[in-house]
């Protein structure tokens, strides 16, 4: 099977990539049209073994960016990368996965299906010809393409010596905007991102921060008018912080059954996400006017 190739200096080669000091001589593509790579793009990268918080931030951020028309670029790795791709797809947005191996390699294996969904609208790209096996020394090189394709890079969660920080370094070298998602200071998974903030990266608080850097408009999640009374009652305590069902019950006085129904309603409306038995507002409380 042959895949389309874009070569440096030829039409179709992404302009932003030229700014790298060692741009890849050619890019192999699976899926989407090559001009996809010239659309405004954001890289979302982070730890493979991320926390529920990291996974949720990555997914929700990608969802909002995707909905607003930004291309989400990431590395198809487990954890944050995978969630970022999924979030963009869930919003019907475009997403690009940059691999450190041949584009026919489906690495990691667990994300083979995800890769299949990505190429339906977006693309999987690599500077290595098909058939090249994944090996660790290729991943930092892959990260320069992730940073090179994106106008801004968001690091969601990273330990102190994480590959995601390499991506951030490339982005800084290119003079692109770097965002870091603040985390708890006690969490080793946020040590890298918090350190980035200390070094001057912009703390990411809402998707709007990124969209402004790209010059795009945010499409705010609307609270549907059809929302039931119970669901409305729960939005207020959830906008403050993540809560367990027991806490919500204590705060609102609602029955467990009623709350379960209301939370499902909010989940379907995309306003609330659940992870490990804890419910979080996906809007950070800002869309509730």
């Amino acid at each position, binding site marked *: 099977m042959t895949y389309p190739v874009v070569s440096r200096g030829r039409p179709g080669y992404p302009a932003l990539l030229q700014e790298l000091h060692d741009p890849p001589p050619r890019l192999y593509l699976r899926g989407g049209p090559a001009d996809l790579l010239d659309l405004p793009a954001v890289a979302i990268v982070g730890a493979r073994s991320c926390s529920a918080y990291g996974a949720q931030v990555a997914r929700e951020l990608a969802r909002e960016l995707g909905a607003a028309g930004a291309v989400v670029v990431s590395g198809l790795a*487990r954890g944050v990368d995978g969630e970022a791709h999924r979030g963009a797809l869930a919003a019907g947005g475009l997403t690009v996965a940059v691999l450190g191996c041949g584009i026919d390699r489906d690495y990691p294996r*667990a994300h083979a299906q995800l890769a299949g969904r990505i190429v339906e609208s977006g693309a999987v790209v690599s500077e290595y010809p098909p058939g090249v096996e994944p090996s660790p020394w290729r991943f930092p090189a892959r990260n320069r393409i992730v940073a090179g394709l994106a106008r801004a890079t968001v690091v969601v969660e990273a330990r102190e010596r994480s590959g995601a920080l390499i991506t951030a370094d490339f982005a800084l070298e290119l003079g692109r905007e770097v965002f870091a998602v603040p985390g708890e200071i006690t969490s080793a998974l946020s040590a890298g991102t918090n350190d980035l903030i200390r070094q001057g990266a912009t703390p990411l608080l809402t998707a709007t921060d990124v969209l402004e850097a790209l010059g795009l408009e945010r499409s705010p999640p609307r609270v549907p008018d059809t929302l039931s009374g119970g669901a409305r009652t729960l939005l207020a305590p959830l906008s403050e912080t993540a809560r367990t*069902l*027991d806490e919500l019950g204590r705060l609102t006085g609602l029955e467990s059954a*009623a709350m379960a129904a209301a939370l499902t309603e909010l989940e*379907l409306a995309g306003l609330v996400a659940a992870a490990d*038995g804890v419910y979080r507002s996906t809007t950070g409380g800002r869309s509730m006017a």
Partner: protein
Amino acid sequence: MLARAVTHALVGLEARPVEVEAHLQRGVPAFAIVGLPDKACQEAKERVRSGIASAELEWPLRRITVNLAPAGLRKEGSGYDLPIALAVLAASRQVPPERLAEHAAVGELALDGRLRPVAGIIVAAEAARRAGLTRLLCPFESAPEAALAGIEPVPLRHLAEAGAYLRGRFEPEPVEPAAPSTNGSWPDLAEVRGQERARRALEIAAAGRHNLLLAGPPGTGKTMLARRLPGILPALTLDEALEVTRIHSVAGVLPASRPLVDRPPFRAPHHTASTAAVVGGGPRPRPGEVSLAHRGVLLLDELPEFHRPVLEALRQPLEDGVVAVSRVGGMAVFPARFVLVGTMNLCPCGARGDPRVECTCSQQKLAAYAAKLSRALLDRFDLVVTMPRPRGRELDAPPGEGSTPVRERVEPAAEALRGSRPPLGDEARALLTRAVDTLPLSARGRARVARSAATVAALAGAATVETAHVAEALSYRPPQELAT
């Protein structure tokens, strides 16, 4: 001289009639048992000889042959002691052979002639009744169990009593029918603080007999809640109780103090249990934990720690409600309709879901842990609840609702569901369709949600399933973190 006694051999949950023939011949004194006896049955020789001597009866100094017919059927266990002893006594005319032939007999002999209970008495008693026999000679402790089968038990403490009874010189005391058990209650739900969501799921599981998976960090009360499920299940009907009693009797786990299992059984095998122990098996098919939990609750604590083949073997009974055990020594079908409750941590180290501890599991370890639960098995849990670590304020809360009020809500709902399940309303159906489009929800997942929504509706006393019921049922679907 020849005499016969009637007893029964257990084959699965059935009992087949066995004739015990004793033949005394002239010749060198000897004692042989033929007719495929197993080791325990072979050893009956020694117990019978000592038992007869201890009963101050005479051991005939003849060449004694005992045949267990049909000779092709394997005879196992010690229940043949009493019929063999009585057949020998009848052959030597120490008890009247014609009177012995009117009775079935079962029981193990002690060396001093006392009678000991054996497994499967109720099944043997039922077979005897069907064969037209009206009285069963059995150990004293087993008499209430035998009485459940509708046969008249002759409770015996000693072989000498058996001899005296058959000669018409002893009338055993009448057997009191097994009284409904009142003691030994299950732990109460009131002891669980907080975890309202899991409590609610427990109530739904009890009303609709849904399988329930409780996930969360250690110490959040998963096992505690699971142990309280049998206490809120509706009581068993008499037929159900007899069915469960039969299984427990054959497995030899029936307590003599409570011959009738009239409350939903609760089984919690350890995670090192073998496949045969859990689904049933052995050279002679024996019911496993899934059958012992029939009409009750099977708790698999720390579900992912169970051996993978054990978990996979559960899929068939979960689907069909029966286990077919095929062995060289025969085939048996055991009922296994139980509510499965699983508990698990969210990751191998247990820290995930606990805000105060950081999870140290590698990505590979997490993937291996998730892979342990196959999609197919996860699909069989109607209700999945992730239990977060309770905050201090929930633990300070006053005791929760007790088991009795919950059971009083569960019983009418379970009764309503016994008939036809409430149908889905139009709006509820639309919500379900929307959920399939928006959430990761499979076709099987949709059917499962519809089933639990019907139970939610039944608990609410509604005639049709409304959107609120579907919405609540949707909240118990497997969460993303387990589904990957």
